């Protein structure tokens, strides 16, 4: 009994009303404003309004050195800051021709996957709250705390890590870190199995999400969706397989794909991705090579030769890319961030029309945006 937008056309004509959702609203996950025009409880027009968190990092980068830009990158998608560090470093390394040692590459993969787990856990928790299930949030944050503790041990910060640096990573792992991480994996595996009973197959949760916000694969591609959102619509596009980077080709993992692209599919894709990430973490822990953690040839004030490059990784929210142009100076000539949240969000103006107002939060939550990345 999938309800389509056409079925949802208001049957009784009534006066239209304009509602502001946000910018200060807990379920908009930051400072997003959506101007909704409703007729009864059916939405007839939706205008997402972004830019409240615009800090101009692309402009700031133009007078900062490459090492400083890594710090800026932490502030885009603060829930997946390792990914941001990674993609900027990848772009700069491509330009400068820096080789990253094997151990550093695998440490990067380890941190990226742990960060993906932390980010998806936050999604899992807050999406439950959006729909009205509070317990899942407490469970998710307990586990997320453990990942953040691991990050704190290795780089001293729980957010804005600045751990992945040009040419490698910041620091060698502390002594007891590997043991702590090895303890975390089986613990989390057990918890992850509980999540399905707790939320995924909860009948109320299923009712709220299974038939809501379906997006077909073609439409998702046309709107430029990427990441779990796109894969939930049945398109198996993942940067880690499409164009492996940082030794991802050495690890065995699968790409979870959804069926009909409903809110529940997008949700469950992320839950299954946590399983896959855990698999990768286990593999890295099993065979972490010895060696240097910082590549040779990165100056204290690096200058990239004139050139242009595009590097992309699979961030927690999708295809995160950096278009980096250098004219030979100490700072990038132009830094453009292809932010997955920004591109994933624009579909709302079409997707919300014809939906019930009570489903707005379910749809918005399932897209999993971070406003820091939308506005940059």
């Amino acid at each position, binding site marked *: 009994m999938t309800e389509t937008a056409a079925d949802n056309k208001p049957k009784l004509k009534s006066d239209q009303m304009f509602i502001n959702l946000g910018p200060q609203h807990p379920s908009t996950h930051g400072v997003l404003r959506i101007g909704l025009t409703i007729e009864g409880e059916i939405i007839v027009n939706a205008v997402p309004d972004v830019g409240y968190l615009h800090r101009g990092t692309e402009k700031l980068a*133009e007078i900062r050195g490459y090492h400083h830009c890594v710090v800026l990158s932490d502030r885009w998608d603060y829930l997946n800051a390792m990914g941001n560090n990674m993609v900027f470093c990848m772009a700069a390394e491509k330009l400068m021709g820096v080789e990253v040692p094997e151990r550093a590459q695998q440490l990067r993969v380890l941190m990226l996957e742990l960060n993906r787990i932390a980010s998806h856990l936050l999604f899992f928790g807050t999406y439950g709250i959006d729909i009205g299930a509070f317990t899942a949030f407490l469970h998710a944050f307990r586990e997320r705390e453990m990942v953040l503790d691991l990050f704190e041990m290795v780089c001293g910060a729980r957010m804005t890590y600045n751990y992945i640096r040009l040419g490698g990573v910041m620091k060698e792992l502390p002594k007891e870190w590997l043991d702590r991480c090895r303890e975390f994996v089986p613990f989390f595996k057990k918890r992850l199995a509980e999540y399905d009973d707790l939320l995924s197959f909860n009948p109320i949760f299923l009712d709220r999400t299974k038939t809501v916000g379906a997006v077909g694969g073609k439409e998702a*591609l*046309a709107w430029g969706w990427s990441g779990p959102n796109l894969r939930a619509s049945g398109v198996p596009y993942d940067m880690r397989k499409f164009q492996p980077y940082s030794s991802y080709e050495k690890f065995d993992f699968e790409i979870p794909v959804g069926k009909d692209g409903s809110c529940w599919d997008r949700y469950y894709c992320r839950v299954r991705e946590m399983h896959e990430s855990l698999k990768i973490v286990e593999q890295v822990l099993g065979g972490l090579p010895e060696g240097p953690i910082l590549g040779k040839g990165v100056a204290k004030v690096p200058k990239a030769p004139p050139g*242009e490059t595009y590097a992309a990784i699979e961030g927690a929210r999708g295809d995160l890319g950096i278009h980096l142009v250098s*004219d*030979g100076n100490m700072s990038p000539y*132009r830094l453009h961030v292809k932010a997955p949240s920004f591109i994933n969000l624009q579909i709302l103006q079409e997707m919300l029309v014809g939906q019930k107002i009570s489903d707005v939060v379910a749809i918005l939550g399932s897209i999993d945006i971070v406003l820091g990345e939308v506005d940059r």
Partner: protein
Amino acid sequence: MTTTTLDREALQAKFAEKFPEAETIGAPAEGSAPTELKGYLTVRFPDGERLLAALRWLKEDLGFAYLDMISAVDWKGPVDIDGYIRDPNPNVFLPDGATPQVQLPVANKTVAYRDAVELVYLLSHLDAKIKVCLKLDVPRDGGSAPSAIGVFKSADWQEREIFDLFGVAFLNHPNLSKILTPDFLKGHPLRKDYKHQKDRFDD
């Protein structure tokens, strides 16, 4: 959709046949200006109409289903420091009057600075794993390009972003308005000659 396997050479030949005016750019010579995006078949178009036709052709006939991103580069020259609100020296621990640790960007003679904003379109073929970069120069003042929204809906906000930050107009865009900067902000901040004007939030 074609079923034949597509590779870089085949694609380059197809481009030369379909768009003889467009220029395929090879890898840059050592020490010369940046021209090619590393790893991408880069094609520069003389005007927006042909670029739009190429986007449609790539999507509908060749199966380039995914628009990676649209970006823009202002090639005027090194950035104007008056465009920033704060002191360019990011080291807040330095005493007043100390030499800034930052070297401000200076013009590099080997780079082709010009009076243009360059639009960069990246597309991916998800099955053949091949990537294309289309480029178009538009004039810095009053420049415009046709909107790609009819081909890729994801161009919507990306074009609004470029309009907001660079001042390039996209023709036939249904809602070309500011998106990231606040309404009171005048000018386009990512242009290299942008100057910050003091407003009520400065003090």
